[in-house]
């Protein structure tokens, strides 16, 4: 029996690196950089005759839109250490060269004296870990995989670092990470690349931030406000076509349109839609070097008429994060079929990742940031978000059913989280909301959906249900309740306030016996006072969408009522995001 080596490599940092983003392009390009570094490492391993297992394909039409940061390869000949080392150096060189390319391309932005600082920042960013062992394929594959996964996880408990050596001191730190020194030149920031890349007067970028900001092409990235306001611009185009056309023509005079690609919905308004937010058009256009008066007049002449008839947009966006449940277990079980079974599953996941792009960008009004298998990150406009999440979950289940047929392996599910935040939040904060929503969706029992929203008042609302319990229908029913006007928010807040005055846990059976009826009674009393058509009739909890399990413990009741209140708060938010034309009132063209 011949022996080979199983080599597992991981590149990072991932989450922190991607989350360090202020502008849309920082986020998109940061994710692209990571994917490119993984691609470079994978290509190098292939050149050294290593065989890719996960991902099975990194290039061609069948490959996933993004290359994951973890690479599992089979080294049948040669030294696995040399393969790992070559992959690491290839990724590192790619990053360094890329960073230096943008450095020399934008002399207006950079401080020539900071070259050493920039080189150090680029040279120390990459984190690389690899583990390998020899085995006899295919029989020992499963054990070998366990060994290398364990060794890699153990090795990562120590993340060595060295102090910075090339700092000049007295410089501000990057606005993206707060740690690396800025490499931007000091002094006036006007025109040229400063406005082209929207680098603000008080903004600072390190060499990595500079790469993220300037690495792509202007117009290549869809601004998050454009995604968040996509339903609004669609409605505006449909019902106020002349006014939208005037606005569009005016924008074309001084702004570069974004490239829609296959995202047809972007054509409704291919500019940064923060222009439609009162209080933002002046700031935004001044950044584009328009006079303040001109910017203000633009708003009055071209945006105000739209707002007057359609109302102000609801400026929130959903950061969608999805992740396959118990994929580790699935891979471990499947490993008994040898590396070819993993390669086959990897191809299935690549197919799902491509499908995820289509679902998010073509079937719904959203943009995919990353899809590297069972891991999906994107942004979707709020009215489309629930449907998009459900469609992704269905597509994943279908893909897994096809991919694992006849293998005797339990098909994994997909947990999806929607983190909702203001369209002008930093991308890092929106991602954080998405990530927390995904964690909530997973819960203890996986296969879940969660909605977590942070409103401008900084209040947060969160709600979770398993896919099998129909979360989309549950929340849509609640939206309907709100839209019918049957359930006033004042009563929901009253129940919520009452809940905060009642302990969640009883300290004794007597305490439990005392507080349970209080909680039940308060909920029923408040809802009974709702004036819903018939005077004095009120609402029962069930009519309010609260299916109270009256025999539950105090803690169970507390959790149930709290989840209901959170669901209503979130339904109210979704209801506000669902647009209806108000009809012409005044000033529309």
């Amino acid at each position, binding site marked *: 029996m011949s022996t080979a080596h199983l080599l597992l490599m991981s590149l990072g*940092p991932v989450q*922190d690196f991607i989350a360090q983003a*202020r502008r849309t392009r920082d986020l998109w390009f940061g994710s692209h950089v990571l994917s490119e570094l993984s691609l470079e490492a994978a290509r190098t391993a292939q050149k050294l005759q290593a065989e890719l297992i996960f991902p099975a394909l990194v290039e061609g039409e069948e490959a996933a839109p993004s290359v994951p940061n973890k690479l599992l390869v089979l080294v049948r000949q040669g030294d*696995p*250490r040399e393969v*790992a080392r070559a992959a690491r150096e290839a990724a590192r060189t790619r990053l360094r060269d890329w960073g230096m390319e943008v450095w020399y391309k934008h002399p207006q932005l950079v401080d020539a004296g900071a070259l050493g600082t920039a080189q150090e920042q680029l040279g120390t960013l990459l984190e*690389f*870990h*690899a*583990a*390998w*062992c*020899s085995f006899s394929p295919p029989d020992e594959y499963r054990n070998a995989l366990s*060994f*290398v996964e*364990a*060794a890699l*996880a*153990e090795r990562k*408990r*120590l*993340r*060595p*670092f*060295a*102090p*910075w050596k090339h*700092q*000049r*001191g*007295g*410089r*501000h*730190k*990057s*606005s993206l*990470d*707060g*740690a*690396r*020194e800025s490499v931007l030149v000091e002094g006036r920031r006007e025109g040229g690349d400063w406005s082209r890349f929207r680098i*603000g007067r*008080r*903004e600072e970028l390190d060499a990595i931030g500079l790469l993220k900001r300037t690495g792509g092409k202007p117009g290549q990235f869809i601004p998050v406000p454009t995604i968040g306001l996509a339903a609004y611009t669609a409605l505006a185009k449909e019902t106020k076509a002349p006014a939208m056309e005037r606005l569009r023509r005016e924008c074309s005079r001084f702004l570069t349109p974004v490239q829609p690609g296959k995202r047809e919905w972007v054509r409704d308004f291919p500019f940064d839609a*923060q222009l439609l937010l009162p*209080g933002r058009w*002046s*700031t935004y256009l001044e950044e584009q070097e328009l006079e303040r008066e001109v910017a203000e007049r633009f708003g009055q002449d071209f945006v105000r008429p739209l707002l007057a008839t359609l109302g102000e947009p609801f400026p929130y966006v959903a950061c969608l994060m999805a992740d396959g449940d118990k994929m*580790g277990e699935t891979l471990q079980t499947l490993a008994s079929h040898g590396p070819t079974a993993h390669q086959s599953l990897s191809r299935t996941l690549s197919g799902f990742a491509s499908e995820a792009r289509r679902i998010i960008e073509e079937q719904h009004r959203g943009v995919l940031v990353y899809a590297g298998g069972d891991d999906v990150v994107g942004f979707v406009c709020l009215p489309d978000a629930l449907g998009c999440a459900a469609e992704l979950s269905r597509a994943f289940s279908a893909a897994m059913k096809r991919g694992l047929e006849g293998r005797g392996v339990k098909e994994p599910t997909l947990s999806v989280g929607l983190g909702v935040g*203001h369209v*002008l*939040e*930093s991308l890092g*904060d929106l991602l954080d909301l998405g990530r927390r929503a995904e964690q909530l969706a997973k819960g203890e029992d996986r296969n879940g959906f969660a909605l977590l929203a942070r409103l401008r008042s*900084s209040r947060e609302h969160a709600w979770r249900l398993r896919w099998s319990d129909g979360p989309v229908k549950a929340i849509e029913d609640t939206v309907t309740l709100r839209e019918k006007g049957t359930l006033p928010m004042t009563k929901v807040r009253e129940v919520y306030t009452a809940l905060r*005055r*009642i*302990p*969640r*846990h009883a300290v004794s059976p007597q305490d439990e016996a005392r507080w349970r009826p209080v909680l039940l009674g308060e909920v029923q009393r408040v809802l009974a006072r709702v004036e819903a058509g018939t005077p004095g009739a009120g609402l029962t909890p069930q009519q309010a969408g609260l299916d109270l399990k009256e025999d539950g413990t105090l803690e169970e009741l507390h959790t149930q009522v709290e989840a209901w209140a959170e669901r209503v708060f979130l339904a109210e938010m979704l209801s506000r995001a669902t647009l209806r034309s108000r009809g012409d009132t005044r000033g529309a063209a």
Partner: protein
Amino acid sequence: MSTTARFALLPRDGLFCKDGRGWYTSDVGRSHSHPWPPPSTIRGALRAAWGQSLMARSSRTLSPAQWERETQDVALGPVLALLRPLGEDFAPEHRMWPVPADALAVDGRLQRLLPRRPTRGVATLGTEDDAALEALWRPVLPPGKPRSLQPFWTEDALSGWLRGETPKSRGQSGPPFRVDVRVTLNIDTQTAEPGMLYQTPILEMLCREPLGTGAREWALGLECTLPADAPDFPGGPLGLGGKRRLTLAERVTPALFAAPRGLPERSPGLRLILATPAQFQRGWLPDGLERAEYQGDPAWVGTLPGVEGQVVLRAALVNRPLELSTWDMVQRRARATRRLVPAGSVYFFERVDGRPFTALSTLWLAPWGNGREEGLGRVLPGHWNPEEMNT
């Protein structure tokens, strides 16, 4: 003549310690805060208070250079996180500790990570080629997906952990954040300036508890050295952190900083947990260790402050660095970023002569590395048996 003072700082309107990012990290102007104040912020507040008290006592105004000179001997010793029910005096049972990196929660259960020699059959490679790094012992991770832990442990949990016992609770969350929203007003129109909105996350130090258990408050316990005898210092509220939020000082006793009872006096191996972030000359690697060959493998061998004999570093559990960027109030400019080993990191040592470590309690909150005057690098000594295989 210098003197030692001990008090607890009680922020009255929350606490905000901005990290190195500027104010304008988004179009809605959201600033970001450290999750817990770094010791350097606390020392800065003490120096400022000392300078103010000097000016008040001498009725003179200090220039920035004088201020720098005359306050530089204000040194911070150990800094503790404290959490007490309202109305109680501070006592050791109110101490809260950073969660140690050798703790892991899997399947709802806490487990200790015990380092073992790397398996011969599996080789590893890191970001740099370093044989000594690859030869370090590694913790054996239990099967299952690790869950995140709460950032703080209680006194009970930590003192048990140092003895080698596993606590039942997964820890205590830190104080919650609230968000303060501010706008810039246009003087002429008396309306908010477009785009000039910013939000700051504030650590809310007072926590309301569920009915019946009252309220609790977080505080910072500290021991400091002052350049002269000053029994009334600080004599009034201090300004602490961003926007110099008002903070009261309450005297505490030396017992608040004492080692807990039951700390093992002897141990075959030594486990050092960082109670505060540490600054070492070579980043993650503690000062005093040099590359050498030990038992046929490359290793780091050397001496530790307060520890007898030569030691060999067996394992280190260290996460990514805490990047500390601070503001020089005298020069009015940003200082260079320092990369600190985060609090909670754990190092494991054996003595080269094979003898056990003794007098562990003398290492309680002892300083390690640079930045001692800033309260950096305070350690908690724990028991470790290199032969132990199961948690």
